[in-house]
């Protein structure tokens, strides 16, 4: 079983957002593997441990993203690819076109990724890549079993579970609950240092940048209005409770 894992390095979810010159500042920010992609890495490694095979992780991003690849290698992935080239850092349309070219250089039975990234939250790259590769995808999976050229997954559909089967090759996106990602072990970290990371530029992929250019554009980024603290109710508890109910009914008018 050859597996490709799509990975994005994102801000840790405990980070607050600071804008500098209209852009999200990366100063002093702790970066992690996008939590949903981390489930994908764990699942790929667990499948390899059970059924054998090879796990490749790929990211499109700046040099700092190599740290996320190293973590994935330390978790048990075998090799990594980074497409580090500003000319192709575009929208989901562009990124999925680039990933498709990378994926086509080899043949994978399984492509795994998070169902979305916690920064952009677009949830597009997985389905788009599957379409570019002409393979089927199943998104937001919470369980995966692999057997002879076939997968059986549990897919979360807004709280309900569908049990779905498909033949490989298939692209699957991970939902929370799929597994508990492992922490890299010390030997894992040591081994990861010797595992290969391939660094690719657009030129290496013989891309026609004009053909795959982004179809969307961000014109502005801004922070929401800071929420001001409201009132802490005072008095005896029963009084507080009835004051709250009154306020919600007649002041805020959010309850009938």
């Amino acid at each position, binding site marked *: 079983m050859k597996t490709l894992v799509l990975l994005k390095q994102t801000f840790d979810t405990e980070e607050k957002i600071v804008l500098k010159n209209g852009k999200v500042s990366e100063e002093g920010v702790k970066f992690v593997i996008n939590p949903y992609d981390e489930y994908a890495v764990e699942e790929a490694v667990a499948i390899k441990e059970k059924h054998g095979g090879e796990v490749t992780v790929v990211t499109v991003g700046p040099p700092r993203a190599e740290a996320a690849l190293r973590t994935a290698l330390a978790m048990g992935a075998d090799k990594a690819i980074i497409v580090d080239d500003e000319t192709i850092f575009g929208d989901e*349309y562009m990124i999925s076109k680039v990933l498709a070219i990378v994926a086509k250089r080899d043949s994978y039975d399984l492509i795994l990724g998070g169902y979305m990234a916690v920064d*952009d939250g677009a949830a597009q790259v997985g389905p*788009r890549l599957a379409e570019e590769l002409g393979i089927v995808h199943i998104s937001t999976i919470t369980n995966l079993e692999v057997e002879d050229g076939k997968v059986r997954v549990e897919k979360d559909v807004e709280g309900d579970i569908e049990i779905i089967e498909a033949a490989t090759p298939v692209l699957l996106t991970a939902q929370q609950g799929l597994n508990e990602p492992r922490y890299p072990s010390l030997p894992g970290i040591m081994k990861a240092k010797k595992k290969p990371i391939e660094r690719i530029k657009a030129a290496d992929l013989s891309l026609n940048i004009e053909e795959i250019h982004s179809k969307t554009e961000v014109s502005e980024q801004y922070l929401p209005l800071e929420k001001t603290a409201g009132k802490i109710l005072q008095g005896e508890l029963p009084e507080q409770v009835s004051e709250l109910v009154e306020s919600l009914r007649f002041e805020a008018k959010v309850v009938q």
Partner: protein
Amino acid sequence: MSKDVLVVAEKRNGNLRNVSFEALAAAKKIADGGKVTAVLFGQGDHGDAEQLGHYGAAQVYLVTNEELNDFSIDAYTQAFTEVFNIVKPDAVLLGHTAMGRDLAPRAAARLGLGLVSDCTEINVQGDEVVFVRPIYAGKAFQKKKITNGIIFATIRSNNIDKGEPDTGRTAETIEHKAAITDIRTVIKDVVRKTAGTIDLTEAKIIVSGGRGVKSAEGFNPIHELAKALGAAVGASRAACDAGYCDYSMQVGQTGKVVTPDLYIACGISGAVQHLAGMSNSKIIVAINKDPEAPIFKVADYGIVGDLFEVVPMLTEEFNKVPV
């Protein structure tokens, strides 16, 4: 310039979803006098078409094929592409639901289009349509537009006013049989865990529990309050990680981002990643023992106290008929 807009409507548990009406409201704005067409795949009927008409569709395609009775990405992408090629819209809108999240990017890729997903606001400036969407789960926002080709977007539930239905309006209804081949996924079974519950992302009121709930049983008073309010039940990551509840209930930057009219946080301290998922709610109530808990910084109303004492009292109070 007027635009023809195609809206993919959807049903859940037999009813049209609110987000479909919200998408129609957005479509009317984008259309600027152009034609708004709604399409319903699978088990749509004339009652649905009538309702979609009331909310602004001039034309409704009821697309059938037995492969469309349940969602599969292959069947829906084929049926969508077929209708898209008949209607030839200038813009396409879907709800950012399980279906929309799956279908929109796949269809956009098939048609070679850009897509702006999970929009919370739409601004029409002359000929230009600018979408507002949250990034970092609402810690920041961005304005985004399609620069090349057909406008394509998914919209988040509960953010765009669906407006009042106009029962005098009727839509032209077209029944269409789609041609569908080669479905590569098979649904073996469906486990309905949500029967009778309210979907978090569409709920007007949410009652959530955190670490302070202390156990799975500790969620009982939360459920009671939710029942009294007709609310959905959510949870913080701490509560999910501790095994008190299912991950499908998690609200936060991982988990669901929600924007209800009322969010009641019980025993939730307010970690940054939780606040990102709920702080754009209209009214926030916090109940927590710790007066220093960060959740109080975003709350409109706070009660410092033990949730096991406060929540049952609230339930009782809400169950009283207002005077």
